[in-house]
């Protein structure tokens, strides 16, 4: 569909974000580029600005300094063009809408006709394995099911970019691991670029092609770990030695966050 794909889906250059209230520097000098089809996790302790970074990409927060480019456009243009789908920590479903109508919400706003909407919703329900719950209201679903509806809604209009802000943070461990698997298989099927905020190391390593480790106050990139685990990944991936090595690497980077890490040191650790 796109004749000339930009080299990077997201380009962040020299990004700084300060909040005037309390004079907090949430992000400082962030440089990060995301290639098409990458699954990138942002991980760090709470207060490291990882959610802020995601929100800057989504143009929900304006940067104080620096530029953010999404699909070759400014973040604002990208948002106006509905270039990304977003999933929050809570499903944020509309109580008064059924599952079907929740998933169809962005499609309605895009002006799709009823028949087209219905077809797409059916596909999405199948994708997130919720066929049979089409006419339920959100409060009749479990937390995990609600989050799957939220993912279906974010993916319904096939955005090239998916922003996920701790989407499984509120779920229990078992549900979380199952949804991790589901998300991976969806991502492998669709090939969209994903930015995934989390504070679970194993989740980040399991899902990602790259893990961006952030340090707090001011939020900086402490290091980036390439995750070379082969695809498709499954339950057994979590038991491979390489998985544990990568988890350890990320943990080391996180552990050193508070101390002043020179860029070379960080680079050495990321190797």
């Amino acid at each position, binding site marked *: 569909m796109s004749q000339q794909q930009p080299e990077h889906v997201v380009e962040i250059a020299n990004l700084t974000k300060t909040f005037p209230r309390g004079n907090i520097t949430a992000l400082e000098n962030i440089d990060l580029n995301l290639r098409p089809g990458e699954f990138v996790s942002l991980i760090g302790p709470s207060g490291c600005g990882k959610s802020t970074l995601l929100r800057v990409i989504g143009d*929900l927060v304006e940067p104080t300094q620096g530029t953010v480019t999404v699909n070759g456009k400014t973040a604002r243009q990208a*948002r106006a*063009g*509905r270039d990304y789908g977003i999933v929050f920590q809570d499903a944020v479903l*509309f109580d008064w809408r059924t599952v079907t109508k929740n998933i169809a919400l962005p499609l*309605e706003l895009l002006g799709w006709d009823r028949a087209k909407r219905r077809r797409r919703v059916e596909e999405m329900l199948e994708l997130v394995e919720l066929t049979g719950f089409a006419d339920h209201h959100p409060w*009749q679903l*479990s937390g995990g099911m609600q989050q799957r509806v939220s993912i279906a809604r974010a993916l319904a209009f096939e955005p090239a970019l998916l922003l996920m802000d701790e989407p499984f943070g509120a779920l229990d461990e078992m549900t979380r691991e199952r949804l991790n698997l589901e998300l991976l298989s969806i991502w492998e099927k669709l090939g969209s670029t994903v930015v995934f905020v989390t504070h679970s190391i194993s989740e980040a390593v399991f899902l990602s092609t790259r893990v961006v480790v952030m340090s707090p106050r001011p939020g900086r990139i402490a290091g980036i770990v390439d995750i070379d685990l082969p695809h498709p990944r499954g339950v057994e991936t979590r038991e491979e030695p390489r998985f544990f090595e990568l988890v350890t690497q990320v943990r080391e980077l996180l552990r050193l966050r508070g101390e002043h890490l020179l860029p070379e040191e960080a680079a050495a650790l990321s190797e």
Partner: protein
Amino acid sequence: MSQAATAALAQRRPLHVPVAAALRRAAAVVIVLAALVGLYELYRWIWSSAGWTHPFVVDDTSMPHVWVILHALWQPAQVNQPALGTILFHKSLFTAKEAAVGFGLGAVIGFAIGIVLVHSRLLTRGFLPYIVASQTIPILAIAPMVVVWVNPKLPASLQGWGSVAVIAAYLTFFPVAINTLRGLQSADPRALDLMRTYAASRWTVLWKLRVPSSMPFVFSALRVAATASVVGAIIGELPSGLQSGLGGAILNFNQYYSIEPQELWATNIVAALVGIVFFVVVVAAEKAVVRRAPENVA
């Protein structure tokens, strides 16, 4: 979640009220009513047999027997007239018409005010004090003015009762405006963020998110407004000199209270019934409109 629980969720039909629960509720209403009647008669019996005069003398004038009140409904209030119940029924229809039109008018105006105010903090700051002030003025002081101002402007078909409807609307709009504003502001900030990611216009956010979020608030205001509109209509009839409604009847029976207190009591009961009917209609409408997790229904 277990398979069984998931299946149970899938089976669950929304808003299915079992018949047994409805029967229980009806039984509760009847039992409470019987208890209240019993207490009234018990109080009456104790005070009159003991001869107590505090806080007031209990006799057939101050507290007519319940059956005397009910019996009055089957008796003509004046010679050569239909039964009081029949007359009050027609009067209550007239008052209900005023109240319903006033309720509708007030609800629409209140809702519109809420929608305008939610979009401007400045307007809210500027106008809210006056909206509040409007309700601190006793309706009895406003009613004659409304009649004088509004009535001459009304077409013949609305003469008289139209101005009463306006008075009812005056009482109705306030709770609706305040609660609509609160309800529109109650939209989940994350949902507002979500709408931003869709680059949704103000208008779209209003209709797809803010208005549905406001519904529980709006309906709890409408419940208050429903009964207020009946009170407004009855009070509005007093300075209008209208004889066709319950307000006129109350004014009339007031004058004969020392002779035939049961007629005023009967009229009050009918007025209360009109209020209850209004309330029940709003609750039914709410049940039909608001699809919400049970714990989120205000």
